[in-house]
């Protein structure tokens, strides 16, 4: 599965658009990571626990989107956009969406 955030896949011709595919996830970390973040907050800087949380969440969202595209029989997903929102303390929603397309045979 080729994923891009431009309107085409370089070097390929798109034959058919299969429509919107999306994947989203709401993830939280366990309390231990939050307590770790509290102590990291004394000195500031990168909060590794939350960085990890968002990277994992984004991977999960992309894999869900890819599954949906595969079930449609797509070859690639183009024009992918991402959003992140903070849902509640220690949890974030990651959403990824794009257009599933099929190549020329």
């Amino acid at each position, binding site marked *: 599965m*080729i*994923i*891009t*955030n*431009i*309107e085409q*896949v*370089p*070097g*390929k011709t798109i034959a058919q658009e299969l429509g919107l595919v999306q994947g989203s996830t709401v993830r939280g970390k366990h*309390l231990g990571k*939050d*307590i770790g*973040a*509290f102590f*990291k*907050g*004394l*000195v*500031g*800087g*990168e*909060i590794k626990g*939350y*960085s990890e949380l*968002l*990277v994992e969440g*984004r991977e999960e969202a*992309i894999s869900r989107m890819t599954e949906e595209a595969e079930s449609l029989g797509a070859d690639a997903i183009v024009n*992918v*956009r*991402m*959003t*992140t*929102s*903070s849902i*509640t*303390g*220690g949890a*974030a929603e990651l959403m990824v969406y794009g257009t599933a397309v099929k190549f020329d045979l």
Partner: protein
Amino acid sequence: MKKPDELVREFEQRMATKAPEWFQDWFGGNTLWDMLVSNGLQVIGIGLAGWLIASWFERRHLRSLSAREAPLQHIRVNTSKRHSSCEPEASTLLIGSVVVAHDYFRTFIIAIRRLIGGNISPYERLVQRGRREALIRLKEEADLRGVDKVINIRFGTTAISGRFLHAVEMVAYGTGIRTRR
């Protein structure tokens, strides 16, 4: 059946329950507020120490950013969707993200500074530093995947609230392509 004022008195008694003596000796009170007030100097001391360490971390981070940016200069980044000749099959989505936060002391200073409004330079520095870090992570991923150009790059900034602290997430994403040489 108890009268309402009896219930209120009972409730007040329950709320006024004393913490164990060793706890009071150690922390100087039986509530969080008592602790903060009676240990004011210690609280400010920890805050100031955190601030000093944070400033040191910031300088160290800026040095490491400059050092890591130098070897990644061959990866070109732009915002256009068009691309000249490139190899098919190599295009991938690349993501770099980082979550950064201020120390509590500076957050407190900023809360006072916000009363006046205007540019809040500590936050400007924080988000710029975070964005550079996110871009470097994106370029590192590009390097790993063997692509040498990133097109249509987008940036996003989101406030992330943890259970105890508020942080900012910076993300950069784009399409990596391999130009024909």
